[in-house]
Each structure stands twice: as structure tokens, then as C-alpha cells.
């Protein structure tokens, strides 16, 4: 599942980066989140508590519920790009 870069998708990346920074009160600017850098561990260092916080905002903003189904809970949150790609596929608004 890859998303072709388009101006719309780049705008969504920036929008989602802004959501992450503001939802978690991170001490960085949205532009500092590289689209393909891991959001977990050695990357941005988010944990499952953060994921739920961001998921809540994403659900309300884009009008769908995140589900893990059989997948790893946080696979959607591998990187900014995987999250934005998931939003493109699922959004209702």
C-alpha cells in the first residue's frame, strides 16, 4: 500500500504532523517529523499511550474509527506516511 506523492497528499502529511505535535505537546515543529522516520522507539519515541491520544483526534477529524483487527496494534503508526496513507483509505470527511 503506497501512496503516490501528490500536492494533496503532501498537505495531508503536514496536517497529520501538526495533529501529532499538538495532541502530544511535543517539543518540535510539525516539519521536523520526517514522513518515513519511525514514530516509535529510536525515532520519535512515541508509545502506546501516545498512539491512543493521536488515534482519538484522527478519528474525530477524519470521521472513521481506527482498528487493529488482526494486525499489530500500532502498525498504522509505523511512520507519518503509513498513518496518512491509512487516513486516505479510510476517511469519510
Amino acid at each position, binding site marked *: 500500500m503506497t501512496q503516490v506523492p501528490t500536492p494533496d497528499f503532501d498537505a495531508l502529511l503536514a496536517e497529520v504532523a501538526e495533529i501529532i505535535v499538538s495532541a502530544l*505537546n*511535543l*517539543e518540535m515543529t510539525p516539519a521536523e517529523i520526517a514522513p518515513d522516520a519511525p514514530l516509535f*522507539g*529510536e525515532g520519535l*519515541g512515541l*508509545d*502506546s*499511550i501516545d*498512539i*491512543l*491520544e493521536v*488515534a*482519538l483526534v484522527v*478519528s474525530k477529524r477524519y470521521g472513521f*474509527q*481506527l*482498528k*487493529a*483487527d488482526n494486525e499489530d*496494534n*500500532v502498525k498504522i503508526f509505523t511512520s507519518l506516511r503509513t498513518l496518512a496513507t491509512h487516513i486516505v483509505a479510510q476517511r469519510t470527511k
Partner: protein
Amino acid sequence: MDDAPSYPLTSHGDPAAIIAWRREGPVSVARFLADVRQLAARFPAGGHLLNLCQDRYRFMVGLAAGLVAGRISLLPSSHTPETVRQLLAFAPDTFCLHDDANDAPLAGLPCLPYPATPAVDGERIDMPQIAADRTVAYVFTSGSTGTPVPHAKHWGALVRNAWAEAERLGTDRLGHALVGTVPGQHMYGFESTVLLALHGNCAAWSGRPFYPADIAAALAAVPRPRLLVTTPFHLRALLDAGIDLPPVDQLLSATAPLSQALAREAEARCAAPLHEIYGCTETGQIASRRTTASPRWQLLRDVTLEQAVETTFASGGHVEGRVALADVIELIDGEHFLLHGRSADLINIAGKRTSLAYLNHQLTAIAGVADGAFLMPDDEAPDGVTRLAAFVVAPTLTPRELLAALRQRIDPIFLPRPLLFLDRLPRNTTGKLPRSALQALLAQHPGAR
């Protein structure tokens, strides 16, 4: 003399009784016993078992196979490389059981993947009887010197704890299906999902739903009566999501005090009673309360509290010995008390417990750190998660390097936000770091709220 007392592996008396629910459907006690026997036969040599199974049913089978095969389970508070090293120093003959190869990165540790195929079910297996004084598990808490402290959990005490909890929640009569948002490896999840399934007449959902929609789906996958075992944080996320929930018959919360407001909202939304349960690693669960009815906690059957000077001790019932509690407690009568917060050094974030002394030890043990200290800011949001701040003097390290080194040592939930680099810490003339001085530094920080 009589034989030492023993208890069965599970109090479910009927082999056809349901002990767990999986995506494929119910798991009977007979199937559980067959899976336990199959797994126990595959255990490698080694007396200690690190059970990393994420699937709650597999975790239960691993624990039970350890009981049957004479292995002791290890339940550390985190799985960082440093913690695992300390675990191996404590029990060099440890092997690990996992159901996800990504969870087994621990070099040098023998690993057993959970069997892919279920055991052949058919022949009748007698219920294993386990001696009450058998050590089931070591549960670890952070010591004050940087070395985790093991607490031995014995079978009789664990079984009686589950019976006391089941009696209080009524699961002994009603036989709830449990959906837990907390892992079986964590003390609360261990007691309120794994032990309640084994000895509280319950059946545990094998998954650990994460997103609100997953919790709703898990609830829908099990029959009523349903008991949701969760935390204030997960509960708040669930209610905030505003999704439709299947009927829930009871809610259980622990790990942090729940606000009255959230408790009322949860009860109204679910039309079900919410109970909080209180305990600690050393005592097991000792009290509960119906949060919307009263701030008072009611002790579980036969447990008693007494106070000497500033310290409260628990004993009786399933509590082993006389145990000092780390919380500030006001006794009301022989059965009730109020909780007035934790002692200053103790940290509890999202149900993970540690101490400032432990964290400070780990921080200052990093090469390049000249001085350092953690601070727990005052709670900002009820039912939310407050993060630690840390102050460090480390002229040769970058923030990224320091965080990477800390990540090797402490659970990620305790990683500081913010992490502030200073030329020196505001130590007073006796070398102490007043909390007020650290709070003032944090307030000056541009990102401080």
C-alpha cells in the same frame, strides 16, 4: 501429618466449562488442559520462564504449563535490555516463551515459540493439583538501588486472591466473560483477567483490544454477562471516541485513581456498575470501591489494615505476612479506608510502577552524565497520563544519545518529556535537590504548560 494443602489448576469444575474465548470460539477446560500438557512437554531445560505471549489465552497456558512442569514464571516490570540482563543475573536458567518472533530479541536467551497447532483434544486429563506453597511467579518491582526486587507469589495466596475478588465482583455467581485492555503480564491484568479466568468462574477474551473500536468488537465477540477490565486512561479514550458499545454488565478499573466524573459517565453510558480495585505487587488486591457511591475503599474478605506511626500494614486473608503499604491511608473502621495518594518517591504511570530513586540511579549511571534527576510534575489532567520531566548535566551528550541510552534501561513510559540539559542542578548546600527548585526550572521551560 496430612499432605500440604493444594488447589486445582482451575476452579472450573466441569471439563466442558468455558475458560477462554478466542476468535475461533470458546475454549473448554478440557481443551485448556490438553494445551497445557502439550506445552509443558515441550519446555526446554531451565527452571524459570519468561512468558512474553501477547495472546492472553497463550499466556495462561504458558503460566499453567509452568505450574504443571515445575517452572517458575518471571514477571518483570518491563522488557528493556537492561531489565532482561538483571533478570538473567537473578535466574540464569531462564527461557522465554513467545507468540511473536519480534518479541524475542534477547540475545543468548533460549526461546520457545508457542506451538502453532493446538493439542489433540480427546482423552480425559485429570485436573492437576498444585501445592499451596508452590512459588508460581516472581513479580519484580524497582528497587531503590537500580536492581529490581523479586516478590515471590505462591499458589495458595493467588487462588485465594482470585476467590476474594470474584466474591466482591459477583463473578463467582454470574460467570462473566472478561475483556481486558491490560496485559496478562502486568499484576492488575494477571489478577483480574488470568486469575479470574482460572479461579473466578470467568472466561477471558484472548485478545488485548487497543483502539476503542477494537474494544467494542471484543465485547461483541463474547456472551453476556461481560466484564470490561480496564484503566482510567483506556476508559476515557473509549468514552471519548463516542462509538456504540455492546451491552456491558460490569466495569473494572485500576492502576490509577478514577475521577468521580469519569466513573459517573462510564456508568451512565454502559448502564453498568463500575468498581475500582486497589492493591500492590507485594499484597495483591486488597480492596475495592464503587466509585460513584463512595470514596471509601472496602477491604476484601479477611484482609485487615493496621497503622504504626506513619505506615499502614496489610495482613490477613490472602495477604502473605504483614506488608507495609507505600500509600498514605486513612483508616475509617475495620473494613473501610480512604486513600490519600502515594508516598513521594513512588511513580505510577499508566499502571507501571517505579521509584524516583530507581530512575535517578539509571540516569546517572549513563556514561557522560555528570548529574541528573527526574521530576514527577503535579497531575495536570484527571484520568490522563502525566509524563515525567528530567534534568541532566551531560556536556558531551546530545539529547538523542541520552534518550537512546535511557531507552536501554527504563521502560519507555518513563522516558522524560521534557528532558532539560543544564550546566548544573539546583542542589542546595547539603547536596539535596528540593522538589520546588525543580518545579521552578520546569515552569521556566518554554514548552511548559
